[in-house]
């Protein structure tokens, strides 16, 4: 499993420093949670790590590979998948199509493949089976043919997670995976995150619900005004005064 880290990362938006000189090594095969008040720069950090926003200074590394300047889709193809704070899905097409869209290296996605269709049918079958296996894993199998827009909000959150898995990414960056979700669905999502970590995936998620963080995070990073205020195992970090200060000041 390649290491995933950033060095000297900074980014400001018209004068306001959203991220200030961050050096973080995200522990692999662990669940790391990023907490901090509104406007602390959490989403900006994920945007920087996934290439959606260019840093002013500093670099991001996947193993020894410098991914700072790469386009977001290149980084995604290297195995770094993400979800968005405002839920993003193709609501007008069935659940299965969203999953199939996420499948990587499809011969059918080349122009020649689309026109000549050589081996595309077999590949579609393989991708369909894998997509259905993942939908079964997250418990959405019987919803495969429903339009994504017809799912409940919690189910849609589950689907975005499943789409990340469909890209075969080893690193998952989840932006508020359980925010605004019904408690039992939230438990389902948190358990799923735990199983994925046990399978060796690196999971990084932004969360506000401290009890959720306490339950599943192996490592916690407290971000405030673009700086790391504290980091370490949840038991130790969550009791520290800085975390209370950052949150409750």
């Amino acid at each position, binding site marked *: 499993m390649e290491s995933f880290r950033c060095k000297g990362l900074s980014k400001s938006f018209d004068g306001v420093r959203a991220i200030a000189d961050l050096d973080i090594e995200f522990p692999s095969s662990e669940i790391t949670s990023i907490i901090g*008040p509104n406007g602390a720069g959490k989403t900006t950090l994920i945007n920087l790590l996934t290439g959606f926003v260019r840093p002013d200074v500093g670099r991001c590394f996947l193993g020894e590979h410098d991914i700072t300047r790469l386009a977001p889709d290149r980084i995604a193809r290297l195995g770094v998948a993400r979800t968005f704070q405002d839920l993003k899905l193709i609501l007008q097409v069935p659940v299965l199509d969203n999953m199939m869209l996420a499948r990587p290296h499809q011969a059918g996605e080349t122009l020649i493949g689309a026109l000549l269709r050589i081996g595309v049918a077999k590949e579609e079958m393989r991708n369909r089976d894998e997509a259905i296996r993942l939908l079964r894993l997250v418990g959405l199998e019987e919803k495969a043919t429903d339009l994504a*827009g017809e799912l409940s*909000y919690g189910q849609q959150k589950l689907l975005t997670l499943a789409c990340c898995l469909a890209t075969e990414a080893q690193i998952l960056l989840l932006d*508020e995976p359980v*925010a605004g979700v019904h408690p039992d669905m939230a438990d389902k999502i948190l358990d799923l995150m735990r199983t994925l970590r046990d399978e060796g995936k690196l999971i990084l998620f932004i969360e*506000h619900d*401290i009890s959720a963080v306490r339950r599943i995070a192996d490592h916690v990073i407290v971000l405030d005004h673009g700086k790391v205020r504290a980091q370490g195992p949840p038991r130790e970090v*969550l009791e520290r005064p800085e975390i*209370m200060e950052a949150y409750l*000041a």
Partner: protein
Amino acid sequence: MPEASVLEVKNLVSGYGKREVLKGVSINVASIEILAIIGHNGAGKTTLLKAIFGLIPIWEGELSLNGGTMRSPNPIEMLAHGVAYVPQGNRVFTELTVRENLEMGGVTLRSKASLTEGIERAVDMFPALKLKLHRTAGTLSGGEKQMLALSNALVLSPRLLLLDEPSLGLAPRLVSEALMRIKQISTDSRTAVLIVEQKVREVLKIADRVCVLRNGRVSFSGPSKDLVDETKLREVYL
């Protein structure tokens, strides 16, 4: 007859498109009281203010001002009833000058006289703005923007102020100063304040009562003294 509360909300349900955010919220604000709304992101704090002010539709529930129920509130009606709203992060008209922002704050006032009088009063409260009336608001510092956003609302001398996270984007040392200012305004001009804040300990210092919102429902409501001690606060909030 107990003092009619300025604002009475009974099991309000609202949200965006398919996502139900507020799942039956009931709060009320007395005439000169500061009620703080705290809670995690996504708990529905901003949605509550937008639903009250009429920026987003109310799915279910009732809302009444000074005893009179409002069927489907809209901003112009609420402003006429003396309710003013400052959106999240102290939004101001960045391309207009400070004076023009104040004039926009009073755009619903009938007479020119009441507008100039309202602006005078608002600017007296914030001397720092008096020197920068002709500057475009986009060039102001975070603290000055907060003052301007507040004074835009005060031009109407409202009876109820809805403030959405006035501390957002302010440097830590400016936060307590900004919240003290709000306390000052509430007492001086006898205005009720419904304030949504992330900086919990700071807002508790100025709030008379506090409500904790969790996943679209009020999970705690009472005088802010109750939450002053850490353990109760941690248990309720975290």
